[in-house]
């Protein structure tokens, strides 16, 4: 280093690269009300679309009269299935290999289903006309309970495919049955469990809920008939996939379709799917030649686009009498609603439910999932989790608790005894996955020490005694969970969506004066990609993150990618970013070698520059190299400094964490008070600690919601009971506690920078932790299991059934 070169640490800090709690570049516009969300888009001559929806969960549509609606001033068109049929757009393919009605084709299959699409010159006229569309229905008996789907006399929902014995995922045994999906060894598992010293069994319902981002779904479709170009702005978590689907459906070349995801007001899985509103808006724009905006309202959002969960799970877990787990057998009855529109990789109709052996070394396991049609909304998205991982982790974390009760053991000890050991990684799990890395014991011990676990148990025991003596009416629960996520889908060899391999991408251009733009195939919905991906790049190429612009979401400019969901952005697009950065650096090294008149092998990288080995005074900074790439002819090297990387991950990543919740429960009111919540996350290399902490706070709050009250409930007639924010629980600042966050770092061995993804971990681990806290409070009084959501009324009922009000 010569005198002019600032110290390494100083230069490194100036980059704002990996590990820096860099403030977010997105915030300037958001805090000033200058975000650009879909509903902010206003195009000349824009029309508004609105749906007529079915009030019935199951009915024939005998006729639709649109005369009165068409007579409303300002109404331009009313589309029905009959209008879409000549275009073959009255049905559309789903991501799960099924098909879904765009508009009711002779029948409706869930309350809130799209029946007709009104297009008008303002939203009020459209709403007026929706009221005036006359639909004649003939009601049919609804199927609400999936356990009754295959009994004799059950109503047949999907008459269009009633005779098909083979579905997208193998044989169907009944017209209301979608698939059976199996993993593991059925016979051995059954034998192990039959011969086991101890077996615990439990049936649990992971209730239907909804991601409910604050911004609902919507789009603005604009067909430019002069240039033959279709532009669709939409709330899309996967804009490139939407473009491909739009091209396949419409016959318009992909080169003539531009899909843009602008700022997105939260996604959480809700905005992965393709919905009838998008198709209808595109058709309406093609028909009218004008831009058409469709924005769902909150009720439409909760009742028609993308429910999550709805898994009826039965688990059997076996162990030695000392507590060593020997086998796990799981069956799931999966309620998929009226169309199988789950958003999972094609080969995984139950997502990654086969991660349900959790963080434990379980030698033998078997899983079977049966998908069932019911008269409920389609969806089955991953609500702030990788595909069905919340369900899997909830199941195993409840089974551990139930087994602990059976063994009369402490649940923390039982976990510790069965964790996969550090030296066992990479670990081949019984249901097929290879866990890349982990150090569970260290994380667990750190968590238990942080909360002084022994003292908590002592306090709890004392509380139980005080309760029995009549000195208090409050019980205390200590909720534990240890989770392993499986994220970053995924390797193209086994992960695709509609045939598109689940790689992701990054393209970088370094400008002559040493700043840069990077474009990715993903799309931020609040995760702060523009901040964090620039940090990854800064560390790779030695240009300050502040000098790197990041763009996503415009299919005309960004490289193809599969989008943002399942915590895949950091594991896949983050890896592509690092790899593209390395390509930049490789070319830059050759340029630097030319400029310094040395062999490129004689250079070494030093934070932001190439230095001649052994001659630290001779160097070229990346900025100097960038300029040279554009201003001089270098023999054998093309001008310019750009790179693109498409990254096909060799494996998933496996973030993990240890959570503890301390809760007081008022036995007489069922009111819960979260006294303390400690969350330790290991997401591998930490890119931006501030953002990680924010993601953990948010994911835990969504976990609190799901565990303690949030649900999409149907009555026995198929009516949605929780279709507005009056009934659908979203925690406010008042119900939400402060969280303590902590971490360990176990880098992913196969990811270029060792990062694993974190956005969904707190939700995955949080739900069982909150639920276990509630259930643990009643363990001393004989409770084995009770279903979520644990709202005050249900908790009161639990206490009542246990005789605690006597």
């Amino acid at each position, binding site marked *: 280093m010569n005198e002019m070169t600032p110290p390494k640490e100083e230069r490194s800090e100036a980059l704002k690269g990996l590990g820096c709690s860099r*403030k*977010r570049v*997105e*915030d*300037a*516009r*958001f*805090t*000033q*009300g*200058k*975000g650009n*969300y879909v*509903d*902010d888009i*206003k195009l000349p001559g824009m029309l508004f679309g609105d749906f007529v929806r079915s009030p019935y969960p199951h009915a024939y549509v005998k006729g639709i009269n649109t005369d009165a609606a068409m007579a409303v001033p300002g109404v331009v068109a009313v589309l029905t299935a009959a209008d879409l049929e000549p275009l073959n757009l009255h049905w559309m393919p789903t991501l799960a290999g099924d098909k879904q009605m765009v508009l009711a084709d002779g029948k409706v299959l869930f309350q809130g289903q799209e029946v007709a699409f009104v297009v008008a010159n303002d*939203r*009020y006229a459209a709403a007026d006309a929706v009221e005036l569309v006359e639909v004649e229905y003939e009601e049919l008996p609804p199927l609400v309970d999936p356990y009754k789907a295959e009994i004799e006399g059950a109503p047949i929902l999907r008459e269009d495919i009633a005779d098909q014995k083979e579905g997208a995922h193998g044989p169907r045994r009944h017209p209301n049955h979608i698939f059976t999906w199996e993993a593991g060894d059925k016979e051995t598992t059954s034998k192990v469990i039959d011969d086991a010293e101890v077996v615990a069994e439990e049936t649990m319902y992971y209730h239907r809920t909804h991601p*409910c*981002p*604050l*911004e*609902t779904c919507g789009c603005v479709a604009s067909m430019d008939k002069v240039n033959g170009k279709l532009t669709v702005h939409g709330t899309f978590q996967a804009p490139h996939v939407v473009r491909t689907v739009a091209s396949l459906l419409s016959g318009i070349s992909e080169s003539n379709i531009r899909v843009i995801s602008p*700022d*997105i*007001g*939260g996604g*959480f899985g809700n905005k992965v799917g393709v919905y009838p509103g998008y198709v209808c808006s595109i058709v309406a724009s093609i028909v009218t030649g004008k831009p058409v905006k469709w*924005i769902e*309202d*909150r009720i439409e959002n909760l009742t028609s686009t993308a429910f999550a969960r709805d898994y009826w799970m039965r688990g059997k877990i076996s162990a030695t009498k000392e507590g060593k787990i020997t086998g796990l057998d799981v069956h799931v009855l999966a309620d998929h609603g009226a169309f199988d529109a789950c958003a999972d990789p094609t080969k995984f109709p139950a997502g990654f439910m086969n991660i349900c052996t959790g963080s434990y070394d379980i030698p033998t396991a078997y899983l079977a999932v049966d998908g069932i049609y019911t008269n409920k909304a389609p969806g089955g998205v991953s609500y702030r989790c990788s595909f069905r991982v919340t369900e899997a982790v909830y199941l195993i974390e409840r089974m551990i608790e139930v087994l602990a009760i059976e063994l009369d053991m402490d649940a923390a000890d039982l976990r510790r005894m069965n964790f996969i050991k550090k030296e066992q990684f990479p670990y081949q799990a019984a249901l097929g996955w290879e866990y890349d890395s982990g150090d569970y014991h260290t994380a667990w011990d750190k968590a238990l020490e942080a909360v002084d676990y022994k003292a908590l148990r002592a306090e709890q025991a004392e509380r139980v005694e005080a309760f029995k003596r009549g000195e208090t009416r409050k019980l205390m629960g200590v909720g534990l969970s240890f989770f392993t996520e499986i994220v970053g889908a995924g390797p193209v060899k086994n992960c695709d969506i509609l045939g598109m391999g689940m790689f992701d991408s990054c393209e970088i251009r370094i400008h002559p004066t040493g700043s840069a733009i990077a474009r990715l195939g993903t799309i931020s*919905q*609040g*995760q*702060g990609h523009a901040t964090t991906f620039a940090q990854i790049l800064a560390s790779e190429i030695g240009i300050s993150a502040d000098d790197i612009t990041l763009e996503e979401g415009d299919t005309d400019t960004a490289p193809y990618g599969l989008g943002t969901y399942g915590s895949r952005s950091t594991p896949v697009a983050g890896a592509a970013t690092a790899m593209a950065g390395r390509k930049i650096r490789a070319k830059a090294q050759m340029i630097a070698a030319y400029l310094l008149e040395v062999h490129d092998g004689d250079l070494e990288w030093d934070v932001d520059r190439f230095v001649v080995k052994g001659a630290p005074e001779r160097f070229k900074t990346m900025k100097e190299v960038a300029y040279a790439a554009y201003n001089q002819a270098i023999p054998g090297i093309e001008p310019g400094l750009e790179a693109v990387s498409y990254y096909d991950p060799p494996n998933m990543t496996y973030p993990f964490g240890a959570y503890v919740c301390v809760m007081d429960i008022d036995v007489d009111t069922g009111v819960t008070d979260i006294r303390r919540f400690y969350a330790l996350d290991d997401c591998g290399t930490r890119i931006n600690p*501030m*953002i990680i*902490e*924010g993601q953990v*706070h*948010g*994911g*835990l*709050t*969504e976990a609190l919601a799901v565990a303690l009250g949030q649900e999409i409930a149907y009555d026995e007639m198929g009516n949605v009971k929780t279709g*507005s*924010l*009056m009934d659908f629980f*979203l925690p*406010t*600042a*008042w119900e*939400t506690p*402060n*969280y303590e966050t902590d971490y360990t770092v176990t880098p992913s061995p196969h990811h270029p920078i060792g990062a694993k993804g974190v956005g969904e971990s707190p939700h995955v681990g949080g739900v069982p932790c909150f639920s276990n806290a509630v259930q643990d409070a009643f363990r001393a009084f004989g409770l084995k299991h009770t279903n979520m959501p644990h709202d005050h009324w249900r908790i009161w009922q639990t206490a009542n059934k246990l005789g605690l009000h006597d």
Partner: protein
Amino acid sequence: MSKMHIKMKVNGEEVETLAEPRELLIHVLRERLDITGPHIGCETSHCGACTIDMDGKSVKSCTVFAAQANGKDITTIEGLGDPDNLHILQEMFKEHHGLQCGFCTPGMITRAHRLLQENPNPTEDEVRFGMAGNICRCTGYQNIVKSILAAANEMNAAKEAAQ
């Protein structure tokens, strides 16, 4: 439907517009006046994304007719600060990571602004209670509360310094 003539002061400027009597204030702000900071999250007063300040009170503009705003003095997020002179709340939300997707943020900051007028020195509980009409799905509120408390401190310190 015949339209009404509505005059109001928005972010310090007198504006006039025509709107149907049934039109909601949020729609008039967003679609007729191009003030798109306040957002629509529920249209039932639950989420607070549309929060504005009307004659010194926090109001959810999705459940107010534009006609009711006739003659009123309205402040939206756009009126709280400008790029060269951010409101301290805007600064603190950035500083303490008080936002993620940003959809709730305009309503959140507009509400926090009024809360700190009503109670310049709130406790954490008072902030949490006072902000309970504004839902955020991303942050878990912890950093929002931190941002507001930090803003209160800064504002009080500035006031003291001025005295």
